[in-house]
């Protein structure tokens, strides 16, 4: 293979799509390293603070598609202060200055300013795809800059971002010459959009495959838009305001029937839709592979999904009523029904009122192919309502049965026992989320010792302390990050860790000035700690309330 000309080697590498494979190839020998380096176009950076933008482009000068992740996952639950970090501007600035031919940028939990978006739109002529997930810091003015200037834009995908809506005409900033859109998702925007501009945009983009609208788009508009896009594969509807009248609803159903390619749906199904219409809607979507809905669908609605959507691979059921006072929620019954009816299900996010061990054991038996299993019982520490027992056995069954499980989120009443099971059986587990669980340091130690492929561990409000934290400090160099908040670790423990592991950034978030210098480190508990391995030492953009030990 050494006599192959570089372009042949490059051609072989073109067929390697996973980052792991490209990384392996770069380590084979010097010539392979060189060819791989100059031909890698797609780069994944799981923690923006593990490396610097300068080092990124020194290693991969021909990067065209970059994924960057910033804040820890628990930021989604408001546990990370807004200005903690994860600013994308320096990355865009360095790439612009170095004439990188950036075409795709995917950001998760980063701070994105309007300035960044404007610089992006101005600097990269061939820019095609912008995906922002759980980001913040920009307004619709920034979106207008992207719409107006990125002539070859194919994808503008905004998922769950905090965007200040200036109620401007950002959507109208797409020029008439823009016909290249493949994906448009603005579901997270709160403001109104110009419906005429939207309809015209959809009509002139024949390759549009994915369209997710926001709440401001009424039902009639949705129906008209769908008429222009029968080729859609992924549809996100806005909300149906109040009670849609039967006529509009019937028209929508009939239009939806013409969209024969729909494999993924999200949005809709809030109050106002009664059971009959909902069942009708779902019955027209037999080929669905992905479904994201609110829990107003209820166990009964999930039964319809189970009976209809035999191709379902991914299900997310979100909470509609976070105060927990309504009846609109799902229980273990809905989940069991789906596990029976949807044999291809492998990815689950399920917010529910309650769960039983029996149900989890049944689900584990019916669906051994789960790769992602996230269960969020709304009431923390809730036991099995039938037996009063912790949910250790239920989750134990899940990890034992689902041999390919890579991601797991626990909830409900849990003891150290569940962690014993996880350490023993979850061989491929990469990410684990723990909240209000466990009895002692042993719990955390079972996980750290047993899960060899663990990359991300996040823990809140659980009784794990310094012993668990410090028993195997080398483990943290094999992981991307560890988050612990409202646990039992002390400042002294964190300092010991930081001293032993110079290549790990140990950050303490001290938002409300609860911690004082000079106070006994061994007693002072740390409210929020986030540690991660890094090649570039402590970061220079940490706000005053973040201490790197």
């Amino acid at each position, binding site marked *: 293979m050494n006599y192959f000309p570089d372009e042949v080697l490059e051609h072989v590498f*073109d067929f390697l799509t996973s980052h*792991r494979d490209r990384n392996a190839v770069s380590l*084979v020998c010097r010539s392979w390293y060189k060819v791989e380096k100059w031909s890698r176009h797609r780069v994944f*950076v799981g923690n923006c603070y593990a490396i610097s933008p300068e080092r990124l482009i020194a290693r991969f000068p021909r990067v065209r598609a970059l994924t960057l992740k910033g804040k820890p996952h628990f930021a989604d639950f408001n546990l990370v202060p807004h200005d903690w970090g994860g600013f994308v501007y320096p990355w865009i600035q360095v790439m612009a200055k170095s004439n990188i031919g950036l075409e795709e940028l995917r950001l998760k939990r980063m701070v994105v300013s309007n300035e960044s978006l404007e610089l992006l739109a101005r600097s990269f002529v061939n820019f095609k795809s912008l995906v922002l997930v759980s980001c913040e810091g920009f307004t619709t003015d920034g979106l207008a800059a992207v719409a107006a200037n990125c002539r070859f834009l194919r994808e503008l995908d905004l998922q769950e971002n905090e965007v200040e809506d200036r109620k401007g005409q950002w959507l109208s900033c797409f020029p008439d010459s823009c016909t290249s859109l493949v994906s448009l998702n603005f579901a997270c925007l709160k403001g109104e959009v110009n419906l005429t501009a939207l309809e015209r945009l959809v009509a002139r983009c024949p390759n549009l495959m994915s369209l997710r609208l926001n709440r401001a788009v009424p039902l009639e508009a949705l129906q008209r838009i769908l008429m222009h896009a029968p080729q859609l594969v992924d549809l996100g509807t806005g909300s149906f305001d109040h009670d849609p009248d039967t006529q509009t609803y019937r028209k929508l159903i009939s239009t939806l029937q013409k969209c024969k390619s729909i494999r993924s749906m999200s949005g809709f199904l809030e109050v106002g839709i009664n059971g009959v219409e909902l069942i009708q809607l779902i019955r027209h979507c037999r080929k669905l592979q992905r479904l994201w809905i609110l829990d107003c669908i209820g166990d009964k609605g999930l039964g319809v999904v189970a009976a209809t959507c035999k191709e379902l691979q991914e299900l997310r059921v979100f909470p509609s009523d976070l105060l927990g006072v309504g009846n609109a929620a799902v229980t273990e019954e809905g989940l069991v029904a789906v596990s029976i009816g949807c044999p291809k299900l492998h990815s689950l996010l399920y917010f529910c009122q309650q769960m039983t061990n029996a149900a989890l054991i049944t689900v584990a038996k019916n669906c051994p192919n789960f790769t992602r299993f996230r269960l969020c019982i709304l009431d923390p520490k809730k036991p099995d309502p039938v037996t009063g027992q912790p949910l250790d056995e239920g989750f134990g069954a899940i990890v034992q049965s689902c041999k390919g499980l890579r991601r797991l989120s626990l909830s409900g009443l849990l003891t150290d026992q569940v962690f014993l099971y996880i350490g023993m059986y979850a061989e491929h587990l990469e990410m684990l989320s723990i909240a209000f669980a466990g009895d002692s340091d042993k719990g955390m130690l079972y996980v750290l010792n047993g899960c060899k492929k663990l990359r991300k561990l996040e823990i809140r409000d659980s009784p794990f302390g310094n012993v668990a934290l410090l028993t195997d400090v080398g483990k943290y160099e094999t992981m991307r990050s560890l988050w612990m908040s409202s646990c039992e670790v002390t400042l002294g423990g964190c300092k010991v860790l930081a001293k032993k592991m110079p290549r790990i950034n140990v950050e303490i978030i001290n938002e409300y000035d609860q911690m004082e210098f000079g106070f006994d480190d061994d007693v002072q508990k740390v409210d929020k700690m986030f540690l991660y391995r890094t090649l570039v030492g402590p970061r220079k953009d940490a706000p005053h309330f973040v201490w790197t030990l």
Partner: protein
Amino acid sequence: MITLTSSDGQTFDVDEVVAVEMQTIKHMMEDGCAESGIPVPNVTGKILAKVLDFCKKHVETVKAEELKAWNADFIKVDQVTLYDLIMASNYLDCKKLLDLTCQTVADMIKGKSPEDIREIFNIENDFTPEEEEKIRKANQWAFE
């Protein structure tokens, strides 16, 4: 019909419609060099025969399913032959065959460690231990 002569003197009569699947040959035909036959000095008769087989099949067959199955069978060759086919398809500029052969090599690489890959392809590790460790760490800590 045109005649191709391999490096070891074998001659092959090839329909023009098949010959143009190889861009290198196509250009030579267009330049008027094909009158007295085209020499292919970089490719042995054994390999050239296989390349021509491939091109012929791809010209004749319309059904994608059938081609896919035939390709899978065609590419079941030993490693040396696979390398020779890659070099030949690169030289002759036959994109479909180059794609197939490179994809096959890529499939041998997928999921393997650097050590495994070196063994499969008999490649010497010319990194110093420090260099290798530095790259490995950067890969794992930053780019995975």
